[in-house]
């Protein structure tokens, strides 16, 4: 009984601070769809605890400092898993996602092993398939660090007459693979994958978040780009 309750309630070790928030990774996705290619960029913001685990992985010589060479090797080792962690389909048909540029890590000026946020940027692309047309549905599968609590958000931009809308723009994930669009129950326990510096893609069983986007008709004369637009009256 107690064990079951413990599982249900996440009863475990002492939790302090905003444990889940410190543990989470923010996944900020952006897709840009054009006539020839679909570019997918993911910025992963690792909060304190999540960052600490990754920084420890980077620090190969365990001297507490992260050199650019250590950062490079970390990314090199991670690259295949990162590639596998993302997927893209158009109207249910998987398209080949290819690395557009090498992943980058921004330690935000804190180049030591401490629980301080850092950002990992991934850039991928796929050739726009011929069956992608108005009304098509794009699905982005994000299985990166799926065992870690996450706040997912995605933005989209179209060019060449393509206009995209996101159906589920912001989603919480609890890191257990079971998630609801609203009201996800999140345990405050630090997931093992974080504490042990788990890999980015622990496998399909850990689940992943899927974003669905739709190519909608573009309104005539509308402005979509953000920028200074003086003159609008309330």
């Amino acid at each position, binding site marked *: 009984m107690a064990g079951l309750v413990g599982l249900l309630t996440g009863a475990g070790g002492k939790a302090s*601070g*905003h444990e889940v928030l410190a543990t989470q990774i923010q996944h900020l996705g952006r897709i840009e769809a054009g006539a020839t290619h679909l570019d997918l960029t993911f910025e992963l913001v690792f909060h304190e605890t999540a960052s600490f685990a990754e920084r420890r992985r980077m620090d190969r010589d365990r001297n507490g400092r992260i050199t650019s060479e250590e950062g490079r090797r970390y990314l090199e080792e991670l690259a295949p898993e990162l590639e596998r962690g993302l997927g893209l389909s158009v109207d249910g048909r998987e398209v080949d996602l290819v690395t557009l540029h*090498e992943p*980058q890590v921004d330690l935000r000026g804190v180049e030591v092993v401490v629980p301080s946020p850092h950002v990992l940027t991934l850039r991928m692309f796929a050739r726009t398939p011929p069956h992608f047309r108005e009304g098509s549905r794009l699905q982005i599968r994000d299985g990166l660090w799926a065992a870690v609590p996450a706040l997912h958000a995605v933005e989209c931009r179209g060019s060449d007459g393509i206009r995209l809308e996101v159906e589920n723009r912001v989603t919480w994930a609890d890191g257990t693979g079971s998630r609801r669009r*609203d009201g996800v129950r999140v345990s405050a326990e630090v997931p093992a994958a974080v504490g042990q510096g788990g890999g980015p893609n622990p496998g399909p069983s850990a689940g992943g978040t899927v974003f669905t986007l739709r190519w909608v008709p573009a309104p005539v004369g*509308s402005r*979509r780009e*953000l920028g*200074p637009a003086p003159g*609008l009256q309330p």
Partner: protein
Amino acid sequence: MNSHATLLGGLVAALVLVDFQARAAAVPGAAEFASELLLKHGVLVGPSRRPQLDEINRRIREAERALRGLAAGPEREGLEARREGAVTELATLAESLPGVLRSRLEGSPPRLVPSLPDRLDLGADEGGLLIRLDAGPGEGRFVIQDLDQARPEHSGTIRIDAAAGGVTWALIGLHHLPVGPTTFPVEIWVGGERWVRTGLTVVAPALGELQVDLRDGDSGKATPTMVRITALATGRDRKPANVVDFGGQFDGNGSPLAQRRVNLPGRLGGLWWCVAGSFRMALPPGEYEVAARRGVEHIPVFETITVRSGALTSVACRPRRWVDMRRKGWFSGDDHVHGRILSDDDAQRLLAWVRAEDIHLANVVKMGDIYRTWFEQRGWGPKYRVAYEDYVLSPGQECPRTHDQLGHTLSMNTRGLIRDVDQYFLYDRVADEVHRQGGLFGYAHVNSDLFFVHRDMTLNVPRDKVDFGEVLQFNRLGTEVWYEFLNTGFRLTAAAGSDVPWGGSVGEVRMYAYLGAKRFSADAWFEAVRRGRTLVTSGPMLEFRIDDFLPGDEIQVKDREQSLRVRARAWGHAGRSLLRQLAVVRHGEVLREAQPAGSGSEASELSLDFEVPAGDGAWLAARAEAVDGTMAHTTPIYVVRPPLRFWKHDEAPALLDRRLRSLAEIEELVASARVRAESGAPDADQAWRQLARQGGPLLEQVAQVRRLYEELRETAEREAAMRTATAGAGTR
């Protein structure tokens, strides 16, 4: 010499070399070289060649990807030919770039002919050198090296591992160069042997100056502003002068940096600095984007400027309002701001931030859990409020907070820290004391039901101990738990908070309280929240009335056929929050909605004006969604036809079942804690020890509230007879 510049994009490959004609190995060197040129050395490539280089990069990478694991055969040969074709194009494009340093490896011992120039003007404090080394017939290579003068592990030697034959293309990134000449040793290595050692002096130009005038675009008054300066050639962020460094006030929590990553879409998101006011600073020459932003009511400013050596460039950044909610009687607030305030300096830094983000009332909360507290405050109550004009920091608390048990609470406008570890799980005691002190009590993270907050809500919302719930955070509007309680007939006011330093910036999501014609004061703002006169937003603005009633009001009707006039208006900024939808929801379901004309259209304003019969009572609210994903929601207006509750009667049994399940969860928690305590095993976890101790009174509350829910079940049955079918009570 040409001007060069590079992007400093986090950690970069310090040294990469690959033989681009090696068949067995992949050719990442060529692709990495192309990426490096595209991402960090756009100035070398120029805008006209960029699309070509982009396409070459894609083709190389596609071929590489397809070649993985592919057995020898015609398909492989075809792919290799495509890859080599793209690599050849890359070399051809590199040949066409201006500013290439060309040399040959000749003689024995080898030497560079011609030698590298003695002195090279870089044109900025960072940039790229593109060196072409010809070693005669052979296969050639692409080489990348980054030298960052700000990183101690970089030796400062330009090392090129060249091919013994063919052309080696070396792209050397130089970063953080001091003004004036910097001399680098240059070593050419071939096959593990150093063939050539020479030197190269790179000159970074004299700095220019940038003056940024930061003012409120409407009043012309100087004001703190959120600022970002980006070198356009490289994308590198330059820290402005006059930055307000409040990072030390976060006790090392969250993102403890003064540079804030804002949870907003598009260009409004990303990294921003809070700058106290106008500033002047030296910068290397080049083109920059200076961006200035002040919360959702202002139009952000994005100015492109050019800084020249020895010259002053001035730019005025004066974000103007696209809407002035104050004039409509609505004043902004953030219910969830963490930051230590131990001194006037601490207070002034946070005050600068809330002024920059145009947040009139910041609930600055000391945070605690059963173990300790964070974000120390000097004191509580009006005496410890800090104000500048209509901007106020008001101390509050986020405590009690239990993470695995009952959730996090927020209190506003309290007179002292209320925290008793021996009664920590009895949140009602805190709520009562907060109310006794004249404050407001509510829950954090309701939008995501973090930390099982639904459990304590189940205990205390029905006992009228709760004023508000945080339904918008991290640009995520979460209504599921909120709607559950509203649909059970409990009032709960909408609140929003950034939760910095875990959130991005103060006011990235915000709540507005309606003061009407009253002059703004913290007390008036709190009173408006107490009355439920709020809306929450991360972008669009909303107005909502039923007859002359406002959010938080109750309309009592005698006749179910009584007609109510419902008016809602949402509007957004044309460059930012164009609207996708405005909806009036009744019991959480869309009663009426407005969308821009035509599928996929967008509007800067949407409105609804219709009449609806009062029916048997309900809660109604307005919500809006913008194209950029920002959202807004009002607190409901409650329509009550006595003696009926305003609840979603047809779902009452299911809603009550859900609440009873939450009570059962609390009972299980207590049972679990007691099993631990009785086991006699040493348990260092104070939370569970205390829960076992406090289980008695907590379970008494559970029993009391269970009776209340059971009574509501009876009420639902009684009401069934009083209500007539509501199917025909739709809009008209």
